[in-house]
C-alpha cells in the first residue's frame, strides 16, 4: 500500500500557479478541429510512400500558385540583390529596421496589391496600413483596441474556429454568435443581427463591434453588397465597430463577385461612419505564404491606426520578409498576372471537387471563393445533433482517412455541414480523395 500522494511530493514539486489565461482552455486546441490534425500528423498521406495515409483536407492552405512565386523570385532575386556585392549597406539597414511604421516600400506595395485585388474599386492609403505577424495577431490586436475585457464582438456563424482563441483568449473579450442558416445560404439577416445584439444586452454584455469574414470561412462565399450596407447601418445605429477580415479577398473566383467593405466606405464622406470600419488582411491565403507572417490592419480611424501601430511592437513583420515581398508586390505586372491565374486555378479546383461530390450524391453550398467548399452531409447523420455529426466525422477520418472540419467546430447551428479544403494538395491527391468518398457513398447505398 503506497504512501498518500501528498507525502510523496518532494520539496521541489510545489505546484506553482500559472495565470488564469494560461490554465484556461480558450486556446481552443481541444476542439475536434485539431483532433483530425493529430491523426494526420501520425499517418500523413504520401503519393508514393504512404498512399493509404490520411489526406489533410482540414487545412486551408493555398498551394496552387507557388510556381508563379518561385519563378519570380528566382529571376528577380530581391533578397540577393539587397545582400549582394553592391547591396552591402542595404543589409545592415534592413537588419536594423524595427520601426513599427513598417518599411514604406512594403506598405506601398501592400496598398497597391489590396487595390488591385479589388479591381481598383477602392483605394488604400499606405499610411493607414499597420503590419502585424499574421492575421491572427491583427484580429487579436484590433480586439484589444476596440473592446474591454468582458465586452463582446458579434460574429456570424459558422465562423473560423481560430477566432475563439484569437478574439477571446488573452483579451478576455467574448464572442456572441449571429446565427445564420442554410435557408438563405447562411447570409446575415437584420433579424439575426438584432437578436444577437439583444442576447448580449440581456446578459448585460456591452457589444463593441461586429466581425465578419468576407469572403467567408468556412462557407467559401462572398458577402452580398446589400448585406454589407445593412451591416454598416446596424453598426452606426448601435454605435459600434465593423471589422471585415478580408483574408480571402484575392481568392474570389470571379473578381466582379466580391464587394469589399472598402468600396462601400469609399463613397462615404461622413467621418463618424468611416471611422468605425477596419479591415484585416494577410498574405497567408491569397499568396500562400502563411510561414512569412504577414498580416495587416487597415483602419479608417486615426486613433486606431496610431494605437495599432504602437501595439504592433509585440508582433512586427520581419524586415527581411518585408523587403523581399516589397519588390515582388510592387511589380504590378507580376501581381496582375498572379491574381488572375490564382483565381482561375482555384475556380477549377472548386469545380472539380463540387462536381466530384455531386457525382457521389453530395451537395455543397454554392460557393464562389476561398480554398474550401462547404459540404452538406446532413442526410447521412443518424442523429441531427453535435454528437451525430462528430460520429460521422470520426467515420470519415478513420474509414476514409480524410481529415475534414466538422461544422460544429465552426459553431454552425445546423448539423451535418463539413468544410473541405482543396487547395493544399496536388490534383492527383484531390482525385484520390474524391475516389475514396465515391467508394464510401457506394458502400453506404449498398452497391
Amino acid at each position, binding site marked *: 500500500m503506497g504512501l498518500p500522494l501528498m507525502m510523496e511530493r518532494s520539496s521541489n514539486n*510545489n505546484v*506553482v500557479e*500559472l*495565470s*488564469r*489565461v*494560461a490554465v484556461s482552455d480558450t*486556446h481552443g*486546441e481541444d476542439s475536434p478541429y485539431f483532433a483530425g490534425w493529430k491523426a494526420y500528423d501520425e499517418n500523413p498521406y504520401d503519393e508514393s510512400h504512404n498512399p493509404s495515409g490520411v489526406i489533410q483536407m482540414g487545412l486551408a*492552405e493555398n*498551394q496552387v500558385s*507557388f510556381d508563379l*512565386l*518561385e519563378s519570380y523570385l*528566382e529571376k528577380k*532575386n530581391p*533578397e*540577393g540583390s539587397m545582400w*549582394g*556585392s553592391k547591396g*552591402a549597406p542595404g*543589409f*545592415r539597414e534592413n*537588419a*536594423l529596421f*524595427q520601426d513599427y511604421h513598417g518599411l514604406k516600400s512594403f506598405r506601398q506595395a501592400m496598398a497597391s496589391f489590396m487595390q488591385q485585388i479589388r479591381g481598383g474599386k477602392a483605394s488604400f492609403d499606405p499610411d493607414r496600413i499597420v503590419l502585424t*505577424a*499574421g492575421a*491572427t*495577431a491583427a484580429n*487579436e490586436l484590433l480586439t*484589444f483596441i*476596440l*473592446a474591454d475585457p468582458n*465586452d463582446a464582438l458579434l460574429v456570424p456563424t459558422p465562423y473560423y474556429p481560430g477566432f475563439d*482563441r*484569437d478574439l477571446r483568449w*488573452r483579451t478576455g473579450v467574448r464572442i456572441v454568435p449571429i446565427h445564420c442558416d442554410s435557408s438563405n445560404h447562411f447570409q446575415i439577416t437584420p433579424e439575426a443581427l438584432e437578436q444577437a445584439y439583444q442576447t448580449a444586452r440581456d446578459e448585460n454584455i456591452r457589444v*463593441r463591434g461586429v466581425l465578419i469574414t468576407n469572403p467567408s470561412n468556412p462557407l467559401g462565399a462572398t458577402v452580398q453588397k446589400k448585406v454589407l450596407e445593412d451591416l454598416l447601418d446596424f453598426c452606426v445605429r448601435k*454605435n459600434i465597430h465593423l471589422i471585415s477580415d478580408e483574408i480571402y479577398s484575392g481568392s474570389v473566383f470571379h473578381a466582379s463577385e466580391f464587394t469589399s467593405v472598402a468600396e462601400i466606405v469609399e463613397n462615404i464622406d461622413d467621418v*463618424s461612419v468611416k*471611422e468605425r470600419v477596419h479591415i484585416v488582411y494577410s498574405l497567408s491565403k491569397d499568396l*500562400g505564404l*502563411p*510561414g*512569412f*507572417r504577414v498580416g495587416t490592419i487597415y483602419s479608417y480611424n486615426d*486613433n*486606431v491606426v496610431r*494605437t495599432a501601430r*504602437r*501595439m504592433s*511592437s*509585440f*508582433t*512586427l513583420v*520581419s*524586415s*527581411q520578409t518585408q523587403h*523581399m515581398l516589397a519588390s515582388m508586390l510592387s511589380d504590378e505586372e507580376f501581381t496582375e498576372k498572379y491574381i488572375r491565374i490564382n483565381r482561375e486555378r482555384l475556380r477549377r479546383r472548386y469545380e472539380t471537387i463540387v462536381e466530384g461530390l455531386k457525382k457521389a450524391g453530395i451537395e455543397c453550398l454554392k460557393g464562389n471563393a476561398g480554398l474550401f467548399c462547404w459540404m452538406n452531409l446532413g442526410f447521412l447523420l443518424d442523429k441531427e445533433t453535435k454528437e451525430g455529426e462528430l460520429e460521422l466525422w470520426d467515420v470519415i477520418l478513420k474509414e476514409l482517412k480524410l481529415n475534414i472540419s466538422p461544422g460544429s467546430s465552426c459553431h454552425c447551428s445546423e448539423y451535418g455541414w463539413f468544410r473541405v479544403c482543396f487547395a493544399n494538395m496536388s490534383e492527383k491527391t484531390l482525385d484520390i480523395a474524391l475516389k475514396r468518398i465515391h467508394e464510401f457513398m457506394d458502400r453506404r447505398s449498398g452497391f
Partner: protein
Amino acid sequence: MSLDKNLLSKLAVGDKHGEDSPYFDGWKAYDNNPFHPEHNPQGVIQMGLAENQLCSDLIKDWIKANPHASICTAEGIDGFSDIAVFQDYHGLKQFRQAIAAFMERARGGRVRFEEERVVMSGGATGANETLMFCLADRGDAFLVPTPYYAAFDRDLSWRTGVRIIPVECNSSNNFQVTKQALESAYLNAQETGIKIKGLILANPSNPLGTSLGRETLQTLMDFINDKQIHLVCDEIYAATVFAEPGFISVAEMIQEMDHVNRDLIHIVYSLSKDMGLPGFRVGVVYSYNDAVVTCARRMSSFGLVSSQTQSFLAAMLSDQSFVDNFLKEVSKRVAKRHLIFTEGLKEMGVSCLRSNAGLFVLMDLRQMLRDQTFESEMALWRIIIDKVKINISPGSSFHCSEPGWFRVCFANMDEDTLQTALQRMKSFVLRHRENKKKRKSFQENLKLSFSSKMYDEHVRSPRLLSPHSPLVRT
C-alpha cells in the same frame, strides 16, 4: 466630426503605451534633425538607441559565401514552398536547434539548452509580454529592480494589466540589488494587498551595463525560491559581456542550486542586441516549466518568427565556426568601443558607472546638476539635446531613484561619429565647468540670490553668464 474616444477600449485610450515618456522626446529631436557626417554634421547624434552595429560585416560576409541560406536565390529556391507554408508554432526544428546551440556558445558551453524548450516570440518585446500573460493575472505584480529598461512599463503592463513594483537600487553599491531591497519591496506590496507573482530583470542590465555576480544571483534565486514566485531573466545582452566577472546565466545557477524549484525559472532571449538583427524579430522564451513552455508556444501564434528568417538563421547559426568567431568579435568590439568612450569621458573629468557589458554606459553627471532633483536632471538633459545636440537617455526614464545618471549608447555609430560626440561633450563639459566657476565667484562677490526662474535661464544658456550679460544687472 469624428468618433469620440469612448468607442475605443480603455487600454487604447490610456497612456500605458509609454510614448509620452521623455525617453521618446529625444528621439523626436533626433528624427527632426538627424546627424550625418557629410549632409548634416550639426545634426543630433543618436546615442539613445541601444543598437549593435559593430558586427554586421561578419554577417554580410557569411551571407555572400552561403547563398543557399536564402530561399530567394537560385541555390536556395527549391526550399521556398516548404518554408513559405511552414507556420507550425513549434518552429523549424533546425532553427530551434541552432538557437539552442547559439545560446549555449554565448555561455561558453557551460550550459545545455534543450531545443524543445525554445519557444518563439515577436522579439524580446513579445517574449516578456507573453511570460506575463502566462505567469500573472490582471492586477498581479512583478518586482523589477531599478533602474530598468524604459519599455518594460509597456511590455509587461500594457495589455496584460500586470503591475510593476520597483525594487530600488542606488549608487552606494553600484545599483546592485540587495536582499533587503527585495524583502522590503515584497513586504510593502503584501501589506497593500498586491499579489507578487515574480521578479523580472535583465542580466546584463539595461541601463547599467553590468552583469550579475554569482553572489547576487544566488541571493535572487534564494529569494524567489523562498517566496515560491517566478524569476524571469532577460538575457538579451548575454554576448556583449567583455570583462570580469564574465557572463553568468541563470541557466548555470540552476545547475549549481539544486534546491531551487525549476518550475519558477524562465529566460528571455533575442538576437536583436547580440547579433544586431532587431529587424528580424527573433525573440525566445526559454522556460524550465513544461506548462509554461506549452502555454507560451500556443501564444507564440500571435508573434511567430517569419519562416524565411528562421530558415536563414538555422543555416547561419548552425555554422559553429562562424558562431564562435562572431561571439569572440562581439565581445572584443564592444570592449573597444567601451574603452574609447569611457576614456574619452574620463579625460574631461566625467565618470561612468563601472560596467562590463551592454551597448551603453551609465554616465554620471550628478556634479553638473544645479541640485539633486529630477527637475534639474531634465533641465540638463534638455540642454544636452538642444545645445550639445546629442540624444541620450535621462535616468528618470529608467526609473532611476537618483537624479544625474544618463545612459549613453556607443555601438550604433561609426568611430568617427563617436569621436564627434566626445568632442561635443568635451566642449560642453568644459564650458559648463567654466560657467560654474564664474557663477560661484559671482555669488561670492555680489552676494546676490537669483530667483530659481532666472537661474533656470542661466542653466539653459550658459553664455548669458558673461559679465556683460544684461540679466546680471537686474
